[in-house]
C-alpha cells in the first residue's frame, strides 16, 4: 500500500469524493422507503396468512376491521400496546428485557440487502437515477451480501436462545434449546446450498447476483435464473432449510403448542411479545425475498413498455407473493415433523446432498471450460457418490445395530 492510499484512508474516506445533499437525501429516502415497505409488507403478510388459512379451512377469517379485515393486524398491534408488561419473578431481568431486540433488529437488517427493482432489462446493470445521481433500488449493496444474510440469521438464534433462557421457566427453556439446535442445523444446509448460487454467478453481492441472472439463458427462451443454472436441487434444499430457519410449519417444533405451550416466548407479554411476533413475520417476508433474489432472478424481468424500473418492482412483488403463498400453503397442509425426523433430514439428507451437488456443479463447469471427457468425469463422480452413499448407509446400520445392543444391555 502506497503513501497515497494511506493518506486516503487516514483522511476519512467516507467523505472523500462527492458528498452533497442529493447523496444524503437518497440514503435517507431509501432508509425511509425500506422501513415503511417492510412494516406494511409484514402487516399485510399476517393478514394474508390468516385470510388464506381460513379459506383453506373453509372459514371466513378476519372480516371486521377495515375492508376484508385488512386492518386486523393493526388492531391487534394496538391492543398489545395497552397490555401490562409482566416480568416473571425468576427472570434474568436485563437479558429478558433486551432479548426481543436481538430477534427484531436482525430481522429488520436482512431486508437491507434485497434488490427490489432497477433497470435490469436489455442488459442494464440495475442503476436508476434519483436526484441526478445513479443508484440501486436497494438499501445497501455490501460486497458480501450473501454472507450478511447468513450472519444475520445466526444472530437471530441468540434472540431466541436468550429469550427462552432468561425467562426462568421450563417451557421457554425447552423451546429455545430446540429452536437453537434446529436453527444451527439448517443454517449449515442453507449456507451450503446458497454456495451453489455463488459458484454459478461468481459473486457474493446480491445486486450482482441479480445482474448475472438477468437476460436470456438456455436456448434464448428460458430465463437465466439460478434455479435453472444450479439445476434446481440447491433451490429445493434452500427452501426447506429456509422454512426450518424461520421455524414455520412443518418445522415449527419450536412452538409446538401441544408440547411447549408457545415455545421460547411463553413468558413474554405486551409489546415485547409483539416484537417477537413482528420479527417472525418480517423474517418470513425477507426469506421469501431472499429466495427470489438468489434463485429467481430478483426484480429482473422483461419490460415491454414504459420505464423498466417500474416493471422490475412489479416482477419482484409477483415472485415474492408466490413464495408467501407457498409458506401459507405449507402451514395449511403439512403436518409437523417429529424432532428425530427433523434432525435426520437436516444432517443426513440436506447437508450431504448440498455438498455433493456443489462439487458436481463445479465439476460440470470445469468440464465444459476445459473440454474434459464428460464420460470419464461422470464415472468418477458416480463412483465417489456410491462410495459415500455406501459409507453413510453402513454407518447408519452400524449405529442402529449398536443402539439395539445398548438397549438390550440396559433392560
Amino acid at each position: 500500500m502506497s503513501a497515497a492510499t494511506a493518506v486516503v484512508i487516514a483522511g476519512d474516506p467516507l467523505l472523500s469524493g462527492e458528498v452533497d445533499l442529493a447523496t444524503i437525501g437518497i440514503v435517507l429516502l431509501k432508509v425511509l422507503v425500506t422501513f415503511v415497505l417492510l412494516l406494511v409488507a409484514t402487516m399485510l403478510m399476517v393478514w394474508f396468512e390468516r385470510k388464506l388459512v381460513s379459506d383453506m379451512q373453509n372459514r371466513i377469517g378476519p372480516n371486521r376491521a377495515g375492508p376484508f379485515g385488512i386492518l386486523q393486524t393493526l388492531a391487534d398491534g394496538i391492543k398489545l400496546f395497552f397490555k401490562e408488561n409482566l416480568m416473571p419473578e425468576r427472570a434474568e431481568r436485563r437479558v429478558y428485557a433486551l432479548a426481543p431486540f436481538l430477534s427484531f433488529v436482525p430481522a429488520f437488517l436482512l431486508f437491507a440487502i434485497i434488490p427490489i427493482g432497477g433497470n435490469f432489462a436489455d442488459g442494464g446493470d440495475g442503476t436508476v437515477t434519483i436526484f441526478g445521481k445513479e443508484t440501486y433500488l436497494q438499501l445497501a449493496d455490501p460486497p458480501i451480501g450473501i454472507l450478511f444474510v447468513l450472519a444475520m440469521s445466526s444472530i437471530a438464534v441468540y434472540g431466541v436462545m436468550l429469550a427462552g433462557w432468561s425467562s426462568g421457566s421450563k417451557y421457554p427453556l425447552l423451546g429455545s434449546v430446540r429452536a437453537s439446535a434446529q436453527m444451527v442445523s439448517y443454517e449449515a444446509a442453507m449456507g451450503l446450498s446458497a454456495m451453489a448460487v455463488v459458484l454459478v454467478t461468481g459473486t457474493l453481492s446480491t445486486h450482482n447476483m441479480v445482474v448475472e441472472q438477468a437476460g436470456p439463458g438456455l436456448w434464448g427462451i428460458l430465463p437465466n435464473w439460478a434455479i435453472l443454472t444450479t439445476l434446481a436441487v440447491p433451490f429445493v434444499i434452500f427452501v426447506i432449510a429456509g422454512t426450518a430457519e424461520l421455524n414455520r410449519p412443518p418445522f415449527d417444533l419450536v412452538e409446538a403448542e401441544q408440547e411447549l405451550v408457545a415455545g421460547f416466548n411463553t413468558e413474554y407479554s405486551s409489546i415485547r411479545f409483539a416484537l417477537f411476533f413482528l420479527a417472525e413475520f418480517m423474517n418470513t417476508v425477507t426469506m421469501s425475498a431472499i429466495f427470489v433474489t438468489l434463485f429467481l432472478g430478483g426484480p429482473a424481468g422483461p419490460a415491454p413498455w414504459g420505464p423498466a424500473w417500474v416493471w422490475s418492482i412489479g416482477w419482484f412483488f409477483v415472485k415474492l407473493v408466490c413464495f408467501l403463498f407457498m409458506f401459507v400453503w405449507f402451514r395449511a397442509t403439512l403436518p409437523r415433523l417429529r424432532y428425530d425426523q427433523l434432525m435426520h433430514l437436516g444432517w443426513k439428507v440436506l447437508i450431504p446432498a448440498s455438498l455433493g451437488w456443489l462439487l458436481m456443479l463445479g465439476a460440470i463447469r470445469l468440464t465444459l471450460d476445459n473440454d474434459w471427457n464428460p464420460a470419464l468425469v461422470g464415472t468418477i463422480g458416480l463412483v465417489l457418490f456410491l462410495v459415500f452413499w455406501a459409507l453413510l448407509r453402513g454407518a447408519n446400520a452400524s449405529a442402529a445395530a449398536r443402539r439395539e445392543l445398548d438397549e438390550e444391555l440396559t433392560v
Partner: protein
Amino acid sequence: MLAQVFSAVDACASTTADTAACGQTYSDFLRQWLTVAIFTGVAFGMGAVMLGIAAVLRPSNKRTGAYQNQKRIGYESGVDPVGSGWTQTQVRYYIFALLFVLFDVEAVFIFPWAMRLEDYGTFGLIEMLIFIALLALGLVYAVRKKVLQWL
C-alpha cells in the same frame, strides 16, 4: 464490487496514483456499510419507540402482595412451578452445536473457492474434493458414533 475495491487498491498503490479515484471507491465501499449502520439505528429506534409508547399507555400495577404476585409466577400448565426454571437438557443439543461449528468453518473455506471456481481450475476442484471428502468422513464417523441418532 470487491473486485473494484481491489483494483482500486492496485490503482492507489501504483506510483501514478489517482488519489481522487481510489478515494471514491473506498468511499462507496464504506458508504454501503454506513447505510446498513443507519438502518440498524432505525431498527433499534423503532423497537425503542414501540416500547416507549407502550410504557406510557399500558397499565402498570407495581403493588406486591400474595394476590398480585400470582401473575409473576412462571407458567407451568397452571400449577405452581416445581424446582428451578433452568432444568438440565440433553447433551445431544450441545453435540449438534459442535457439529454446526465444524460445518460453518467449512463454509468459510468453501465460499472463496465457489466464488473463484474458474481461476482455481483443476487444482481447486481436486483440492476441494479432498477437503469435502475429509469432512464427509467426519459426518460418517458422527453417524456411526450414534451422535446423529435421535431416537
